[in-house]
């Protein structure tokens, strides 16, 4: 049985009505152990760690059609208009109204999108680059998506995503995804989890009208590891040359292909506490499990 909200609060979950989670104590330690495990798995490819900002220019995301595909999920970094008169009008009002919204707020034009997925930065930051060979990157970021409803540790407006990204040829990305799948199939049982892999599609706006949704129907590029029948805790994604073309990335004169493996950290907290309970003594050591996987597959950075 899933832990109750009170049990989760006792081990460190502070749930915000906005759909975000604050973590402390044992739950934060578990989240960090998860993340260290994923970084350890990224060592299979000697992936380099990168840290990126919390937003991307809308112009950059437009290169790959993000806002046309997912306008219903986008969140933005908004700022008040810097005009003196606008700021004065704002201060003359109540500032925040009875519904919790800013009152009399005139905004600057919206140009920054809060990170929707960690890997977008990896491509955007390499805009126009010619790669000398395949590159493997791991990065973690807070990601933001508007949803119809929010559920603690399962569906959040702001959540933590760890990704491992491969940029290279089509063959490089196929081999990357093959090894990722093999690694995860060893890792899951060591974590006491037995998710089922299923082909999946991204949550496109008006999907029937979106060629990229149609492509995902006829050429399965996304697989999700589903825990408990309905919770995706990891996904593998083959982008073909979608990002390489959009961001002008080349390898040997041809658009770069890319693929990624993504983990939603808060969802792992749900799955692990659902499976093992809220007593930290009963939680598996995930970093040790990942190290075991790397040793078995004969790779990985020390």
């Amino acid at each position, binding site marked *: 049985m899933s832990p109750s909200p009170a049990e989760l609060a006792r081990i460190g979950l502070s749930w915000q009505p906005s759909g975000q989670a604050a973590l402390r104590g044992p739950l934060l330690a578990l989240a960090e152990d998860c993340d260290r495990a994923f970084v350890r798995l990224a060592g299979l490819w000697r992936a380099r760690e990168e840290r990126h900002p919390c937003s991307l220019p809308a112009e950059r995301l437009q290169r790959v059609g993000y806002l046309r595909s997912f306008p219903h999920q986008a969140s933005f970094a908004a700022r008040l208009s810097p005009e003196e008169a606008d700021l004065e009008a704002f201060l003359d009002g109540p500032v925040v109204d009875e519904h919790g919204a800013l009152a009399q707020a005139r905004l600057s034009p919206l140009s920054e999108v809060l990170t929707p997925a960690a890997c977008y930065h990896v491509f955007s930051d390499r805009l126009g680059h010619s790669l000398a060979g395949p590159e493997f990157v791991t990065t973690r970021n807070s990601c933001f998506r508007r949803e119809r409803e929010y559920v603690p540790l399962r569906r959040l407006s702001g959540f933590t995503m760890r990704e491992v990204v491969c940029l290279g040829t*089509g063959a490089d990305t196929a081999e990357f995804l093959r090894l990722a799948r093999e690694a995860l199939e060893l890792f899951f049982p060591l974590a006491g989890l037995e998710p089922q892999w299923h*082909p999946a599609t991204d949550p496109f706006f008006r*999907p*029937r009208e979106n*060629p*990229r*949704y*149609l*492509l995902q*129907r*006829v*050429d*399965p590029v996304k697989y999700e590891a589903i825990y408990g029948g309905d919770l995706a805790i990891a996904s593998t994604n083959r982008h*073909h*040359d*979608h990002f390489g073309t959009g961001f002008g990335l080349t390898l040997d004169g041809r658009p770069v292909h890319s693929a990624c493996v993504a983990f939603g950290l808060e969802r792992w907290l749900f799955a692990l506490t659902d499976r093992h309970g809220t007593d930290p003594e009963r939680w598996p050591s995930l970093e040790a499990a990942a190290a075991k996987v790397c040793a078995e597959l004969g790779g990985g950075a020390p």
Partner: protein
Amino acid sequence: MRSEQEFRDQLRSWIRSKSGEGETAALTDGTALFEERYLRSVHLPELLLLLERLCGEPIDVEELSPRDFRSIDAMVRRYARSGVAS
């Protein structure tokens, strides 16, 4: 009534017209079209319209299955026999 061979010929011709010049030398009826990037997402709406025209029946996008679109052979197998083609 459109024969299976006509269906196949028209489909092959359309795919060749969408692939880059000089890129179709290795294209066969068994080639993995999306996997090997002969076709891309932007081609799909037009491909579905073509298949609807060739087989004479509407196609429900929720019924799309990867196994039916992998190659020219797969599309012929699925769609040339579902409609007026014989």
